[in-house]
């Protein structure tokens, strides 16, 4: 009984390590075959459309709502200490440092990441990938790498849009609806948010998230068993794995970036 459980556990661990190695090799291959994505940039543009443009609506709407909630909650909390004027700084800092990169990446994973996995998985299941290989065309270069770079380019842009919409939402609730002084809202924000320290670091975060989410989504699609269940399972795994990875990486990056405070 115990031996059996141990064997099962050992099997799982060996499998996980194996998959990690395979995933790393896959990631290296993406980078190795990335030349085409830039030489024939229209391939990447196509994917920018399906990952970036198609995620625009959800990012803009979600960003606005998150900013509005931040405005409301932040105001209620700050009011107790008589520092409502710091609302702008609170909203903007939360957004550019944490919520923008993290929430945009989570939304991106479930909107674009899952779609990428399903698409690649289905291409594999319907032998489109094998067909490409038989035509002497490398699917890593032609199919996978352009999607990867599109995701990596989209993510920081989407995160910037999310944060900007969030600030706008916070402004609407804080200044327009509640009546916090407009001047102090913006000036406190500018005084509180540092370009290098907050905005650039936030962008670095979302770049890293973009790499992680897209790589996971593509790997899961490429590795999916070529059946209906295989593809649907892989899609679920993409969302779960990339969400956990985003939160974990966020912790690591935050610890590195903002430890000096």
């Amino acid at each position: 009984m115990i031996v059996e459980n141990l064997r099962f556990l050992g099997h799982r661990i060996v499998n996980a390590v194996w998959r990690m190695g395979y995933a790393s090799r896959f990631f290296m291959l993406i980078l190795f075959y990335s030349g085409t994505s830039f030489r024939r940039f229209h391939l990447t543009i196509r994917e920018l459309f399906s990952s970036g443009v198609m995620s625009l609506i959800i990012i803009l709407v979600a960003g606005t709502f998150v900013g509005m909630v931040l405005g409301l909650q932040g105001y209620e909390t700050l009011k107790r200490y008589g520092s409502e004027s710091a609302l702008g700084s609170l909203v903007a800092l939360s957004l550019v440092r944490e919520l923008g990169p993290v929430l945009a990446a989570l939304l991106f994973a479930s909107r674009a990441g899952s779609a990428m996995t399903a698409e690649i998985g289905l291409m594999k299941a319907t032998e489109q990938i094998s067909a490409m290989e038989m035509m002497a065309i490398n699917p890593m270069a032609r199919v996978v790498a352009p999607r990867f770079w599109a995701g990596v380019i989209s993510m920081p842009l989407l995160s910037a849009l999310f944060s900007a919409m969030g600030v706008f939402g916070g402004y609407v609730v804080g200044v327009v609806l509640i009546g916090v002084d407009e001047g102090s809202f913006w000036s406190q924000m500018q005084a509180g948010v540092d370009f290098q320290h907050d905005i650039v670091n936030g962008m670095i975060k979302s770049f890293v998230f973009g790499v992680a989410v897209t790589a996971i989504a593509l790997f899961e699609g490429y590795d999916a068993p070529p059946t209906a269940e295989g593809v649907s399972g892989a899609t679920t795994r993409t969302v779960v794995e990339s969400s956990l990875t985003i939160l974990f990486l966020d912790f690591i990056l935050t610890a590195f970036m903002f430890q000096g405070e």
Partner: protein
Amino acid sequence: MSSQALVEIRDVNFAYDSRPILKGVNLTFPKGKVIAVMGGSGCGKTTLLQLIGGALKPSGGYVKVDGQVIHELDHKGLYHMRRRMGMLFQFGALFTDMSVYDNVAFQMREHTDLPEEIIRDLVLMKLHAVGLRGTHHLMPAELSGGMARRVALARTVALDPMLVMYDEPFAGLDPISLTVVGNLIRRLNDALGATSVVVTHDVQESLKIVDYIYFIADGVVVAEGTPAEISTSDKPFVHQFVHGEMDGPVPFHYPGGDYGQDLNLRPGR
């Protein structure tokens, strides 16, 4: 004859993990001919095509195409060889995110520097050859099964390959589409001066269009011959296959241990 052979398959062995699929098969495909490879489902026909295309490596023997041993080619050499091959996959494998036009144009755009006007003419010519010029703006999802197969056919021969492989081109087609596709395979082969391999279990259709037939069972070639020889053969296997009989050398049951034991029937109960 061997001087004119485009494909030579010699003593090829292949196993998935430890399950042997092919146990020393020998086939020769002369230039310009249409050859059928037949056998029951799961006998290794697709596997054989993948060995020719270099997607799999034999564990013994070799596959020679145009004088070159496939599994000894490096990545570049293999890709170079594949450019001169066309493969029609079992279900067409059209790129679902591209229009019919883009599907046929795909290899021309990837492998040549032809200007778009010439590609346009070539694509329309290929589509015309399969009778589907009018569908060039449609997406694969908008085609019927038979039409999709013909578009896939046009895409397969887009770069005028010297060797065309068809994996079950008749599967799932209605009788009319089936005859259409069969005739296309023959006509395209002769028009291109190519060599074609048709993997199928549709005996009647293949007998009409091919020059030579191989039968594979249990990992070896069990019979071969011209359509005339095959249709009059009295070999039990061929006879069963050609006439679609249920009983014969090809067993109805997959090997599965003792039936009584599986049902928990023990003697003495």
